[in-house]
């Protein structure tokens, strides 16, 4: 399956997406590091193509035994898709502890902690999608972020129908033993607006 679609997703396409997301991720990481007052490490984003039923393979936390905290924010407009923040629950619990100063007595996430995680997801996702929208001059409509818990694999329930391009990046806050993954899943047919950026006549990436 992948090889067939590799042709649809050229190296240039991948580069564009990676760059768009990378800038946003950089901002998000900065915001997060300010919130937790610690350095946030990022890996290079990976771009992959998937059918929604194969999506769980893309999730590197799929191998984790822990339940996953998931913050999901849909977007539509110039390009459609969903942004997803996935944090294994022990990490999520520690993250809430760091942010609120409330000791994490257990890995359980109650409603108030869910709200904190939702906010974190919201900040990170807005940073990423905001820069994407700005730079590509895409008019995006955003849904409200929503918190969910899932056992691995996490993304089957949130995946869009049909073909997806997934840009995902792993992050970690080493000083607090927190790790997570941010993935932006684009609905393939809606990526036309992004590919238009490859047109030499189009303006280059706009400054943020």
């Amino acid at each position: 399956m992948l090889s067939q679609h590799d042709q649809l997703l050229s190296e240039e396409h991948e580069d564009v997406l990676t760059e768009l997301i990378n800038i946003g991720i950089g901002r998000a990481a900065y915001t997060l590091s300010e919130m937790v007052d610690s350095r946030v490490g990022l890996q290079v984003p990976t771009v992959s193509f998937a059918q929604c039923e194969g999506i769980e393979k893309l999730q590197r936390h799929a191998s984790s035994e822990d339940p996953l905290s998931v913050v999901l924010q849909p977007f539509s407009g110039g390009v459609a898709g969903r942004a997803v923040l996935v944090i294994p629950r022990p990490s999520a619990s520690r993250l809430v502890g760091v942010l609120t100063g409330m000791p994490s007595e257990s890995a359980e996430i109650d409603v108030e902690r869910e709200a904190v995680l939702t906010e974190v997801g919201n900040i990170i996702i807005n940073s990423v999608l905001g820069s994407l929208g700005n730079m590509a001059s895409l008019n995006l409509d955003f849904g409200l972020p929503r918190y969910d818990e899932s056992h691995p694999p996490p993304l089957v329930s949130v995946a869009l129908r049909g073909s997806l391009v997934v840009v995902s990046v792993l992050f970690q806050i080493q000083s607090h033993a927190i790790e997570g993954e941010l993935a932006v899943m684009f609905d393939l047919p809606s990526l036309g607006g992004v590919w238009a950026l490859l047109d030499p006549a189009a303006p280059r990436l706009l400054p943020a």
Partner: protein
Amino acid sequence: MTGAQMALLDHVPNGCLVVDVAGTVVFWNEVLEVWTGIRRSAITGLCLYDAFPHLAAPRYRSRIEQTLSLGAPTILSALLTKPFFPRTRDSERRRFEQVTVTRIFAASKSGPHALVTMTDVTEQHERGERFRQESRRASAEAEIRRAHAANLVIAKDLAESATRAKSFFLAAMSHELRTPMSGVLGMADVLLHSELTPWQREHIEVLQASASSLLVVLNDVLDFSKIEAGKLEIESIAFDPRSVVDESVILVAETAHAKDLECAAIVGPSVPRRVVGDPVRFRQVLVNLLSNAIKFTTQGEVVVRLEAVEEGDALVLRCAVSDTGAGMPQETCAKLFEPFTQAAAETSRLHGGTGLGLSISRRLVRLMGGDIRVASALAHGSVFSFEVRVLPAPAVSDGAKVVTRGRERRVAVALAHDASAASLCAQLESSGVEAAVVAPEDLAAETTREELSHIFVDAAALARSGLDPCTFRGAKIVLVTRPAASRGSPPEGIHALVSQPCRITNLEHVLGLTQARAPGAGATYEPLGLRVLVAEDDRTNQLIAARMLTSFGCVVQIVPDGQAAVEAASAEPYDIVLMDMQMPVMAGCEATEELRRRDYSGPILGATASALAEEQNACLQAGMNAVLTKPLDRRGLYDALVHWAASRMAA
């Protein structure tokens, strides 16, 4: 904002305000009026960040502005956000708000506006806080409970190890006490077999009886400690359950007869002559029950009944000891098998005993795969029954011979006591003789009608039958007496005297089925003429062994240690080597190993005061043929000598 939009937001149960891109408040809903006490008219048109400077912080202002420019909603969670506005009512209470900022286009011509919605989640937070406190307390309590449980485990371990230590101490002490006791008993035995005046004999018999009682108590304590320490092992060796029952009854018969009690064993035909199990422990349980029954019965009888039932590959020996004693109430029966429990507090004072006997019996029986129970009725006596699991063993060849030879004989049994008659009849039947119980009155008529070889009759029955032994011709009359009266020559007209209860071998001898191995009731021994080497360092034990062996007609050589034993036996072979375990220079096992290394093939019998199976196994491993337990029992030693000397001949 249109009037309709404002009306709509006035009805939302959340605090709502709308600002434009410059931060000017364009709407303030009724809920906010209530919360803050600030009227809409007073705030509208003011800059939010001027009116409430804390909202100018980037955390609020930048994110509101981001929503305005980007369109992506902003979420401010209650735990990370202070309430936007101070409350007038209930101002002491700390408030928690979840804030959502979304971009709206209030009118077609106007620019984007930010709708800020505040949801009061104070109640939710307080509930959560209570829950968190509750779970903190619960987990603290759980931690305390865990610690308690851990302490309990430690305490339990300590208690158990204390119990084990106590058991080991008792076992060790009992062992230490048994060794000098064997000296006392052995010397008493030696003295009793010497020339004594009646006065001396009487005193030494008291000495022997007291020492024996003490040994019983020691053995009880030792057994109990071994069971407690998990050290007691059940053996699997071939034995004849009938003879175990007979021996047990004979052992206690004298006590029973002294109280004028009848004592009999009735062994069912289903009981085989050979089974594989632990004869010593079986006998121990039986003797314990018999002794108790005799102890607590003042008149009447004590009867043992033994049956065997097949259960798959195994055999179950069912044994019941019934008495005609006082009986016990139900509640006493229930606690009878607990350690240190006796039916009544005064029992110990009246009858002595450790109160361990039944507890030990129950544990032994359970170790042998069965259980023990009691049925009792006040004034009607008690029945203690138990079963043990054994395995069938191949029949002994000479046992079969007895049966074929015995079939030619028919005997009549006429005894005053019914159970004794039944018991004797069963014994005779098991020897292959056709035996029938006959009422004393019918005896005379029976002798004329039937071709009888022997008549077993006791004095009372003989008197009632009207037979005169001096004139009677035909069947041989065997007079059944109590053991004390069975020694000496039979009176005129009487073929033989047998004691009731009687050893089966003795019966067979009287019937002419076997050659006498030991005449009488086993009080004297046929000279063996064996050359026996005794390795023993203790002076007392040397003396006991020498006296006993000499009385068996053996030639005895005594050496004080294992090294000397090796040298003596290597120089000239002995018929039997009797080897002590603990000796200076070279211990028994070491000496045995050395002898076997030198190809010494004669029988070596170990003698140990330890009844522990491990030590006995060590002896056998070292190359000994068998192990005898000290104090040496005269009969046991004699039988062992006969057995191993015979095996040597056969080899």
